[in-house]
């Protein structure tokens, strides 16, 4: 692993410097204004106080981390000269500390120098217990962050950390200026409106006007570290509306130059693109739309023990049923109808990065209604007079829940029909996203409580390391009343072998070995049909034809390389 990142890092840095050299004769701000539309408006410019994608992307134009992920998921040095690894001595041999060295001569947009004190301050800012920092998970296991000298920072972990690139890698954890945020620690964090709306940064742009949940105006940073960049003098970052309107503004009327997250039906997108004003770009991260099967009994009659491990599910605990549910689904059709070029069929819940993609589950792309029927017949599920199968008085009648979203409702309708063909009755339920993904203890409709037989949503992980993501399906992660329904193991999957592999991965540094473990864990989930993957989803954005240099990035902020954007004639 270390070697790969080393190569990627140096290559990226080298690439960056050559292009910078080649264009250095061109003036900053030569291309005027660029219009960006996000149909969800940015509400704050401080990712530590809002983890929303829109907020992280907006702030990534202004404040930067020590290193980024590029469009291939490789790490690229941003404020440092090289990525620390075990090989170059940046990461200690026992994997308990990492030392970053800032590049020489870095300036904040106000002209002051960037020092290691800023990095230390940022870590303390987020790790303050009372501040409600939303990126706290990135600092998990961090024992101390200390400045060795003006440019060197050492992060020490409380144990071996095979993947020490949590803090300050990627746009979710950028460096804040200590001088600006000094009075904003802990409980005071939310009161610093001026700072949160207009942070001083090292990025290509600075905020000139911030209208929360509406529009942001930015201007090129005169102290940006690469000469001649950014090519645009100003950015107009508009928010609001819906995906269709954003697509129309870029692909049809050309009023805007860049539109984020165009989650639209493929034929609508194709029709808009055919106007010839702009193009649709897509890129794939680890986001997978999946069905989570509830292995426990969600029956309301159980009261407090509803959807807890105390009661196994009356029929979902039969693997034949779960397998039949998966076999009856026509995944290529789902992709075609719901996502078009923004989706791929996947048989794995962990389809990316490529080294973690298991080759062992191929074949799920073939819909097999007859096979599913045969499987259920063999397992003793007999069709009743209404066509619904049952065994020993247990009817195969399913409550299928998801969040409110046009594509998800289309998927529900199709899947309901396929399941009807194999003798399974389905009742559909959709819940507004704020409630479904929210953690309100009083609501019965959250995705953690899963008071249904199965549920559908999409999930992914930050960065490129799947360790924390795969650890979700360990026994200890099962949401229950005891842990206030906190936990990521929605299917209530519990297997001692799986837990052992999770523990093993936590202590393994070798990349190939980690990949082997991740694949084995993925296969265990897939082959027990506890999670039914449907679509590997990508990011889709619209770019007007005159805008050059856009590289869509699924591993980091979409605006990660806005400094390289320019206008073609």
């Amino acid at each position: 692993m270390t070697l790969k990142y080393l190569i990627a890092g140096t290559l990226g840095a080298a690439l960056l410097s050559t292009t910078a050299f080649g264009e250095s004769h061109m003036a900053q701000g030569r291309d005027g204004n660029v219009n960006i539309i996000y149909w969800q408006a940015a509400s704050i410019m401080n990712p530590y106080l809002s983890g929303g994608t829109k907020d992280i992307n907006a702030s990534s134009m202004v404040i930067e981390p020590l290193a980024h992920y590029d469009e291939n998921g490789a790490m690229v040095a941003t404020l440092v000269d090289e990525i620390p690894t075990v090989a170059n001595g940046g990461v200690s041999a026992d994997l308990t500390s990492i030392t970053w060295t800032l590049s020489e001569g870095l300036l904040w947009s106000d002209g002051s120098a960037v020092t290691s004190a800023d990095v230390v301050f940022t870590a303390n800012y987020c790790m303050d217990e009372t501040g409600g920092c939303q990126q706290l998970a990135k600092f998990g296991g961090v024992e101390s962050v200390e400045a060795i000298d003006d440019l060197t920072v050492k992060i020490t972990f409380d144990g071996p950390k095979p993947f020490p690139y949590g803090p300050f890698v990627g746009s979710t954890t950028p460096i804040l200026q200590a001088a600006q945020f000094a009075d904003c620690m802990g409980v005071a964090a939310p009161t610093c409106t001026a700072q949160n709306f207009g942070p001083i940064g090292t990025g290509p742009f600075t905020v000139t006007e911030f209208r929360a949940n509406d529009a942001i105006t930015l201007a090129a940073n005169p102290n940006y570290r690469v000469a001649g960049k950014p090519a645009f003098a100003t950015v107009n970052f508009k928010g609001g509306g819906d995906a269709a309107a954003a697509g129309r503004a870029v692909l049809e009327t050309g009023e805007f130059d860049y539109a984020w997250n165009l989650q639209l039906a493929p034929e609508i997108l194709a029709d808009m693109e055919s106007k010839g004003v702009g193009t649709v770009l897509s890129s794939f991260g680890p986001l997978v739309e999946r069905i989570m099967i509830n292995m426990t009994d969600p029956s309301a009659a159980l009261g407090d023990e509803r959807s807890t491990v105390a009661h196994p599910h009356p029929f979902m605990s039969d693997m034949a049923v779960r397998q039949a549910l998966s076999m009856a689904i026509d995944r290529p059709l789902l992709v075609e109808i719901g996502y078009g070029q923004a989706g791929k069929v996947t048989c794995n819940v962990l389809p990316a990065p490529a080294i973690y993609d298991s080759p062992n589950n191929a074949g799920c792309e073939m819909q097999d209604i007859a096979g599913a029927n045969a499987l259920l017949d063999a397992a003793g599920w007999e069709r009743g007079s209404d066509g619904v199968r049952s065994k020993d008085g247990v009817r195969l009648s399913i409550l299928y829940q998801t969040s409110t979203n046009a594509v998800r409702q289309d998927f529900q309708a199709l899947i309901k029909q396929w399941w009807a063909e194999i003798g399974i009755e389905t009742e559909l339920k959709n819940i507004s996203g704020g409630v479904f993904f929210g953690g309100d203890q009083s609501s019965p409709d959250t995705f953690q409580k899963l008071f249904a037989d199965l549920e559908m949503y999409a999930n992914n992980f930050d960065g490129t390391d799947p360790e924390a993501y795969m650890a979700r399906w360990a026994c200890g992660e099962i949401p229950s009343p005891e842990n206030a329904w906190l936990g990521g193991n929605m299917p209530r999957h519990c297997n001692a072998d799986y837990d052992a592999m999770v523990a093993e991965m936590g202590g393994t540094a070798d990349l190939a070995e980690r990949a082997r473990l991740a694949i084995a864990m993925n296969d265990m989930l897939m082959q027990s049909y506890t999670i039914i993957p449907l679509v590997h989803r990508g990011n889709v954005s619209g770019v007007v034809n005159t805008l050059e240099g856009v590289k869509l990035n699924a591993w980091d902020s979409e605006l990660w390389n806005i400094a390289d954007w320019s206008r073609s004639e």
Partner: protein
Amino acid sequence: MTNATAEIKDDRKYRSLWGDVWSQFRTHRGAMIGSFVFIGILLAVSIGPYLWTLDPNYADVRNRNQGMSWGHPFGTDQLGHDMLAQVLQGGRISIAVGLTAMMLSLVLGTFVGVLAGYFKRLDGILMRGTDLFLALPILPLLLVIIMLFRDTLRGMFGPETGIFILIVFIIGITSWMQTARIVRGDVLALKEREFILAANSIGTPARRVISRHIMPNILSPIMVSATLGIATAIITESSLSFLGLGFPSDFPTWGRLLFDGTQRIAQAPSRVIFPGLAISLTVLSVNFIGDGLRDALDPRIRGR
């Protein structure tokens, strides 16, 4: 007043009130056309699904996004659902929701409005209550109501009827305030009129004054509210579906069909035209019926 075309009848012949209303109603051309159209729509949505037997929820995926054809006169949607079957099926739900929710809000609104306007003692409290309802944030209120009652009603009446009751109730109790305010205003003005004073002075009980003298005179604002109410109810239902608070996604309603179609307005205009036409025709015909009824029920116009 201008259509004084009703023939003068023999006064000695027995005439019932509703007979008079009907004979006046018949002379109203718009109202008669409206009635025919409305009855036609009612018939279409009630009998239609038996004649056009395609299952509205069967997704014929190979034939999705089709234009108009003999097999699918209204075309198909993005999953291959037959749009004609969907419009017919959706009409049942939309019209049922529209009519019942309108009735509920009308009864509530008129009741509160008349009481508040007629009885000075109740005015303060009822109107402050109306203020309260007007001031409540509808959306969070919906979330609360749905969270509290969805599962209970689903258990008692099954998923469809349960949600139906819930939605009608929600639309009803969040839309009666306008009617109440308007009715109250009219009652306040009527109360000062001579014929009410006369009725009061000969000792007519309040109940009778309201039913005989007030009600017939406030029918016209109520009728306007009613016709507008049906449209609002149908449209409110569609925004509820949009927010994920309405019927389950496999129950088509006109409002939702129109909303879904709006996204594809440029690609497939028929997707918006048919549900839009259905809503507009219904509202229009109900409005004309309301006009006719208003004239027919008004004792000053009738018989002139």
